[in-house]
């Protein structure tokens, strides 16, 4: 692709050839019959090569065609033959009509040519806009825009070197994008000595052309091409191109800034969510602990045994809750930074679940029931992390259900994995929240939502790190069930066919 406004020399030559040859052929063809055909017929035939020549070679052919046709017509077809003289007065009429017709047709064709040139120029401009529009759509970053502009400039203007330079206020110049051959340091010095160039301007004998595309605080962006187009039409298009390219770069810069702002806003949102979480989840247990301890320590009030026990139990439970929260915070940082290290081993899920429930103690009361088969295979997992997952799921159920809502924890073996379910008969989870519930800091849309959106996100992160799956089965208004699957440990010590052997294997060795 190359942009141009005038007819190439090759076609002009072809047009001239066609005209001269056409006239010669017409003359040769008509010569045997010149006495029998009328002068007007010869004139009509001789119009054809002139029109063909102009159509092919452009408007510059027209005078040549008209003169060649006129001379041939006069010499060969108007008596006396062989001279430019005209014998009969009425033959003058034929000659004049021929000249007029040729001129008019040549003129019309010339007009058509002009119109075609104009259309081509418009098309070239449109193409620039079109290509640039595509660059705009494709360039999310300033770097991408620079790259696309240099490549496009090289293509559109047939340049062997196309580069974008960034000139800092201090005067230092560096190439930020280029297509084709590299610019030499002498080229860079030349461009920087002439910067800023508000329009695309040829730089002396270097065959370079350079001009400003955009400026920002502290830096100027310059487009440099070699060789510089010589055609004025191309220079005009290059200026237009530079102007539009500047707009593209500005757009890309704005979109980069917008993206940066969005990222900052997201960081800000997460930070304030974390602050809110830390503030609430640390202070609430601390409030219970401090209130309880200040009572126990107060010598002026009478606490009966029951009250003392209640306060002590509160302190213990709330300390566990604080521990869970602090562990969650640590896990969160490790998951977010990708530094979660699994300390895997064969873990008995039933024992793990029971120990978690013991820690919750009276918070759960009689509301929890367990459905775990005795022969549940061991899972290949990090005990501490899975403990945290179960604790988070149980705490989530307690938090979102009214007191004493039944909670059922069950586990069952599958092929290669063990599935555990924590099911409550609470209010369920709104459809809109279900898709986001495992996202960090997602707290649900219902006004009654409690919690800080860390616990479930950590569950998801931990289970995923194990190569397992965690999902939610919830009916709005009809309870929620969180289900997770973990891979079974490789050498399951329980074998349905041979329980005795297993028992012996598991039992401690007897010393005799």
């Amino acid at each position, binding site marked *: 692709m190359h942009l141009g406004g005038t007819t190439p020399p090759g076609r002009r030559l072809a047009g001239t050839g066609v005209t001269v040859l056409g006239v010669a052929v017409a003359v040769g063809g008509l010569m045997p019959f010149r006495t029998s055909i009328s002068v007007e017929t010869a004139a009509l035939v001789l119009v054809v090569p002139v029109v063909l020549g102009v159509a092919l070679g452009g408007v510059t052919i027209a005078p040549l065609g008209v003169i060649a046709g006129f001379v041939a017509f006069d010499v060969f077809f108007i008596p006396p033959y062989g001279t430019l003289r005209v014998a009969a007065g009425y033959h003058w009429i034929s000659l004049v009509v021929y000249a007029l017709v040729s001129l008019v047709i040549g003129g019309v064709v010339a007009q058509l040519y002009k119109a075609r040139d104009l259309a081509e120029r418009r098309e070239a401009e449109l193409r620039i806009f079109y290509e640039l529009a595509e660059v705009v759509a494709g360039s999310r970053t300033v770097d991408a825009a620079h790259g696309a502009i240099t490549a496009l400039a090289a293509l559109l203007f047939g340049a062997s070197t196309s580069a974008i330079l960034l000139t800092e206020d201090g005067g230092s110049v560096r190439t930020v994008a280029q297509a084709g051959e590299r610019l030499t340091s002498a080229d860079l010095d030349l461009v920087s000595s002439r910067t800023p160039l508000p329009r695309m301007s040829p730089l002396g004998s270097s065959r370079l052309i350079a001009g400003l595309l955009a400026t920002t605080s502290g830096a100027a962006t310059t487009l440099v091409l070699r060789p510089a187009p010589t055609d004025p039409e191309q220079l005009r298009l290059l200026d237009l191109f530079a102007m539009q390219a500047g707009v593209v770069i500005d757009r890309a810069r704005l979109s980069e800034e917008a993206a940066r702002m969005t990222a900052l806003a997201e960081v800000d949102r997460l930070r304030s969510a974390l602050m809110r979480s830390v503030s609430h989840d640390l202070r*609430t247990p601390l*409030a*219970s*602990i401090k*209130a309880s301890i200040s*009572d126990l320590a107060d010598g002026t009030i*009478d606490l009966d045994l029951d009250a003392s026990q209640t306060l002590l139990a*509160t302190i213990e439970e709330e300390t566990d809750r604080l521990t869970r929260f602090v562990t969650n915070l640590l896990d969160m940082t490790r998951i977010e930074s990708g530094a979660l290290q699994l300390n895997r081993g064969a873990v008995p899920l039933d024992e793990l679940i029971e120990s978690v429930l013991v820690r919750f103690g009276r918070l759960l009361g009689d509301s929890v029931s367990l459905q775990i088969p005795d022969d549940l295979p061991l899972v290949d997992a990090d005990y501490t992390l899975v403990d945290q997952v179960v604790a988070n799921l149980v705490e989530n159920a307690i938090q979102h259900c009214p007191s004493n809502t039944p909670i059922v924890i069950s586990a069952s073996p599958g092929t290669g994995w063990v599935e555990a379910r924590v099911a409550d008969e609470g209010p369920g989870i709104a459809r809109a929240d279900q898709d986001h519930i495992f996202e960090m800091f997602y707290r649900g849309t219902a006004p009654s939502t409690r919690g800080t959106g860390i616990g479930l996100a950590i569950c998801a992160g931990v289970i995923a790190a194990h190569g397992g799956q965690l999902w939610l089965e919830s009916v709005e208004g009809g309870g929620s069930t969180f289900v997770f699957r973990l891979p079974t440990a490789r050498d399951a010590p329980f074998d349905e066919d041979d329980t005795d052997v297993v028992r012996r294997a598991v039992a401690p060795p007897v010393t005799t």
Partner: protein
Amino acid sequence: MKGVRLLVIDDERAVLRALVTGLRARGYSVTTASSGGEGLGMVAMDGPEVIILDLGLPDIDGVEVCRRIREWTETPIVVLSADGAEGRKVEALDQGADDFITKPFSMAELEARLRVALRHRARCTAETDSSVLTVGPLSIDLAGRSVTVRGREVSLTRTEFDLLAFLARHPGRVITHRMLLEAVWGPEYVTESQYVRVYANHLRKKIEEDPGRPSILLTSPGVGYQLVDPD
């Protein structure tokens, strides 16, 4: 404080349990609610003498609960805030809460706030018709626009008097900068909290025995002022 009826509104079961155990051991008669809606219902039915209200409730925002209670009763409200943010407490005070305490707190601190709220509210309701307000050693004659401290008359500027009178109408209550500015200077001055600071310092020089360690006109840092009976 034997037998004083308290209502504690908090959704955190552990907090409720600790508060109820401690308050009952101190002789209060305590009822509890674990949501804003339940709390509002119990305020209406039981008519508690003081309400302890947590701001972070699951159903209705604590500030809104404050506003709804104030629509029809002047029962003192002590707000529990876990936010750590000043803004929420100030909002609650603007909506009519009497005092606030930030979690975590000791039971002794909480009881001190309850005492202040109870004492002043009792006095306040008894004296609403009087044109003379008394708060500890202060006596403020609203009609005569004169003030005596421990029997000795002090001369106050017009603004100082208005400020003191407004605080004295709500003894024991923490009045936010915004409320004071709106009442004394006018609604267009609500952001000029330095005005209050300057005038409160002037007032202290005239009414406090030791203006450096005030005992009557107390500061709630970043929030507002409170006029209390030091005894």
